[in-house]
Structure formats: C-alpha cells, structure tokens
C-alpha cells in the first residue's frame, strides 16, 4: 500500500509520471497551475475518483518519482 504527494506548482506538465504509472493512478489535472500548465495529479486526490479502489492500487513502486524531471513527487509506502 502506497501513496504519493505531488508538488503541484513545481510540476511542468511533462506527463512522464502519468505514462509510466503501472496502475494508471496519475492524471493530468484539468485546471492549470501557476506555470500555466496542466500539472500531474494523483488520482486518489481527485474528487471524481473511486477512492476506495484507487487508494489500494498504489504500490509505492516509485516509477513516477524515478521519471519526474522536477523532483515534484514524494513516495510513501
């Protein structure tokens, strides 16, 4: 069982975390951050998410953080 935190305003919207998450738990947010890009968002944080199922899925595998060029992501397990 794991979770991540994403520094929303540091994100440059490259999407590499989202593409590489094996559980597809990262989406690009509809709203923009201070940089004017759509930042990555951990889906269990989104209001539209199926919270119970999604929270179980994160394994804390760190693929997202390993790819992130801006070191926006911290991973917990």
């Amino acid at each position, binding site marked *: *069982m*794991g*979770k991540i935190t994403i520094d929303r305003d*540091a994100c*440059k*919207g*490259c*999407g*590499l975390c989202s*593409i*590489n998450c094996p559980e597809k738990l990262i989406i690009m947010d509809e709203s923009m951050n201070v940089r004017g*890009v759509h930042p990555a968002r951990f889906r269990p944080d989104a209001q539209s998410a199926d919270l119970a199922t999604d929270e179980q899925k994160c394994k*804390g595998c*760190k*693929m997202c*953080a*390993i*790819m*992130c*060029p*801006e*070191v926006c*992501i*911290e*991973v*917990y*397990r």
Partner: protein
Amino acid sequence: MKKVFERPASLRAVPTHYCSGCGHSIVHRLICEVIDELGIREDVIAVCPVGCAVIAYEYWDFDCSEAPHGRTPCVATGIKRVHPDKVVFSYQGDGDLAAIGTAEIIHTANRGENITVFFINNGVYGMTNGQMAPTTLIGQKTSTSIHGRDIARDGYPMKMSELLSQLPGAKYIERVSVDNPANVLKTKAAIKKALKHQMEGKGFSLVEILSPCPTYWGLSPKDACRRIEDEMSKVFPLGVIKDA
C-alpha cells in the same frame, strides 16, 4: 507509511530552467542521488559545460567550475591532477563533447585521466536554438538542417563512445538512456559504477546518456521518450561499450 523517495540532499530545492520533459533534470537528480548514497558530496568537484546545463552549478550543492566550450575535460583534468583524492567529473552535451571539444575528450581519454565524464546526448544543440549536432540522426530536421540531416552535406552521426573505446586509456564506457523508469535506474547504476571506478583509481570512465529534448525535437515528452527507444537507440545502441 514511511517515505521511500524524496529529493536528494545535494540537489538544491530550486526550480530549474530546463524545459518540460528535459532529460538534464533527471540526470542531475541521479548524479546527486549517487553522490549522497556514496557520501562524497564534500569530495566532489564538478565541471559544467556550455549548453543548456551551463548553470548546473545553481542546482548542485558541491564545488563546481565553468569551462570554456569543449574544454571541460581539460579543466577537469587540471583539477584532478591537483586534487587526485577528490572525485572530479565533467558533464557535457553533444556540442561540448563531440564538436568543439572532440580533441580534448580524445586526449583526456588517451592519457587515461582518472576522471568521469557524463555525456548527455540529445542529438541537438538546445541552448542556442536547436541546431544540428554531431549526433543528430540522418534525416532529422534541425534549425541548420531544415530539410533533414543530409549525408552529403553534413556527414554521419558520431558514435563517441565507440570511438573513445578504441583508446587503451579509456577503461569504462557505457551507454544508457532516460526514456523509461527501467532505463533511468540503469543510468543511475552506470553513474554509480563510474564514480566508484574513479574512486578506486581505475582510470577514465564515461557514461553516455541518451536524453530527450522535446522542445527541439518538436515532440511531446512522451513521444520524445518513444523516439529514443524507436530511433536513437538503434543508431546509438545501449549497453556496456567497454569495461577493461
């Protein structure tokens, strides 16, 4: 739950100037992770290139020097000869290492200087607006090859790792990439191996890292990573080139 991933201590917590999806930021972080894991921050002296990473010293919390374009290995050699007990690395792009600095890297490797070189190969000159590099692929469009790199006019992409591996003074050369998490972890392993190689006094080491440049490839970060897998690594094969 406990934290299993965070920013390495020797990577300063400041925003970088790198483009969205740039490989430089990933490699900067990996170098800092390795330096922290080896506990050598106070012994490291880095030499920064001219190119997009010219201000890498803003992000790295250890001693750094600038160098004139291409002369990075010379500056690193001078530092290492004066402080043989310190860990000295140069960080160079494809213009710095394979164009203006070709003579310097060959002779540094030939003398077997006990330094480590991180060669960031993204097949284009980013800093100066996307010109052709010695590692640009045939047919690749850049600001100085608007119809695509043409063999007759521009010659072929240069395989610097293979070229340098001919030299007896070059001891460990590996080519890696940062286009997916597995490859990023291999890059980190190569960085660690190269720095340990130097710390054990084993001689010249070089890690060539295929890196995305979404801006000047005209691709999204996702497509840029795919291009490394589908096209770049066919011309620049990944793997250990030399491990003497």
